[in-house]
C-alpha cells in the first residue's frame, strides 16, 4: 500500500480531490489552512479573507498499483497551478 501527500493552493484543492476520486482513489483526506514555503515562495493565511486561502494538504492511501493512475490524474493540475507531491510506503492498520 502507498501513501500520497499533496501540497497545493486551497483554491485548487477541490479540483484535485475530484480528479483523485475520478481516477479511482478509495478515499482521501484534506487539511486546509496549511502554510509553508516552496518554489513559489512563502504562503501565509493573510489572503484568506479574499477567498484565495493558503495551502491544502491532501493525503490519499491506496494500493501500490493505483499510484500511477492517481499520479496521472494529479500531475497536470500540479503543473498548471503549482504544488508538490510525494509517495511513501504504508500498510493498513
Amino acid at each position, binding site marked *: 500500500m502507498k501513501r500520497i501527500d499533496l501540497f497545493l493552493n486551497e483554491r485548487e484543492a477541490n479540483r484535485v480531490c475530484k480528479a483523485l476520486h475520478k481516477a479511482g482513489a478509495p478515499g482521501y483526506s484534506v487539511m486546509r489552512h496549511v502554510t509553508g514555503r516552496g518554489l513559489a515562495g512563502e504562503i501565509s493565511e493573510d489572503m484568506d479573507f479574499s*477567498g484565495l486561502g*493558503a495551502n491544502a494538504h491532501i493525503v490519499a492511501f491506496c494500493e501500490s498499483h493505483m499510484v500511477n493512475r492517481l499520479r496521472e490524474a494529479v500531475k497536470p493540475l500540479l503543473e498548471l497551478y503549482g504544488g508538490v507531491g510525494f509517495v511513501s510506503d504504508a500498510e493498513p492498520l
Partner: protein
Amino acid sequence: MQSSLVLQNLVSAPVLFFFLGILAVLLGSDLEIPSPLPKLFSLYLLLAIGFKGGLELAHSGLGPQVVLTIGAAVLMSLLVPLSSFLILRSWLDPFNAAAIAASYGSISAVTFITAESFLNVLKIDFDGFMVAALALMESPAIVVGVLLARVAASSADTVKKSQKGNIAWNEILREAFLNGSVFLLIGSLVIGGLVASFSPTGLTKMEPFTDKMFYGALCFFLLDMGIVAAQRIQDLRRAGPLLIAFAILAPLVHAAVGLALSLALSLPQGDTLLFMVLCASASYIAVPAAMRMTVPQANPSLYISSALGVTFPFNVVIGIPIYMALIQRFVPAS
C-alpha cells in the same frame, strides 16, 4: 485646504487603525487577527454595504442620472483594464499584465467605504446608488482581464495548443459573476431593494446590524488590512520599481478621468468622490481569487502586492483627501 483634508483623514479612526496594523508589522509585534476572523468582517462589510445600497437604490429609483452614472462606471471597468494592460505589457508578460490590469479595472470596496466615512465626517451627502456602480464594476474587469490573458497568450504562442481552449467561458463567467464576494454584494443589494420596497418594517430591524456596527467593524477590518498590506511590502522588492510607480500613478490618472466623467454627468461633490475612488482603487478581494483560477500563470504576489500593498494604502491615506481637494476646486458645493 488640501493639507487640512489630509490631516482630517489621517486622524479618523479607520485610518488610524490601518496605521496601527502597519506599525505592528514594522515594529515586529506578533499582533494578528487569526483567520477566518478577517473573512467575517469582509463578509459583514459586503453584506451591510450591499443591503444599504439596495435600500437607497429602491428609494431613489432608476432615473436617467442613476443609469448614466452606473453606465459610466461599467465603462471605466472595461476601459481601465485595457489601457492598463497596454502599459503593463511594456515590461511584463501577458499573464501578469492581464491579471494586474483586471485588478485596477475592478474596485476595492473597503476604499469605497473609507471614502464614505470621510464624506460623513465632512458632512457631505452622497447617493446610495453609487453602491450599485461599485457592485457592477467587478465582473466586467475580471472578464476583460481573463480575455486579455487568453488573447495575448494565444497570439504570443507561449502556451501549448492543448492549454489554449482549456478553460471554458463557463468558468470565466463563474469567476466573474459568482465569485463569493461579488455574489454576496450583488445579492445583498437586491435583498436591500426588495426589503425596502415590500417589507419596510424589516429595515429598522436590520439597521442596528448593518448601520450601527458598521464603523467599528470597518476599523477592525482596516487593522487587519494594515497588517496584511505591510506584510506585502517585502514582496514589493520582487515587483520592481516600474510596478510600484504604476501602482501610485494609476490611481491618480484613473481618478482624474473619473473626475472628468463626473463633471460631464454633473454629479454632486459626494458622488464625484465615490466615483473617483471607484476608478482609482484596485481590487484585492474578488480579482485575486478569480485570477488564481483563470490565469494561474500570473504570479499572485505581483497583483496582490501592487493592489493591496501600494494602491490601497495610497488611496486610503492620501488619495481620498487629494481627490476631495480637487473636487472642492472643480465641483460646486450643492
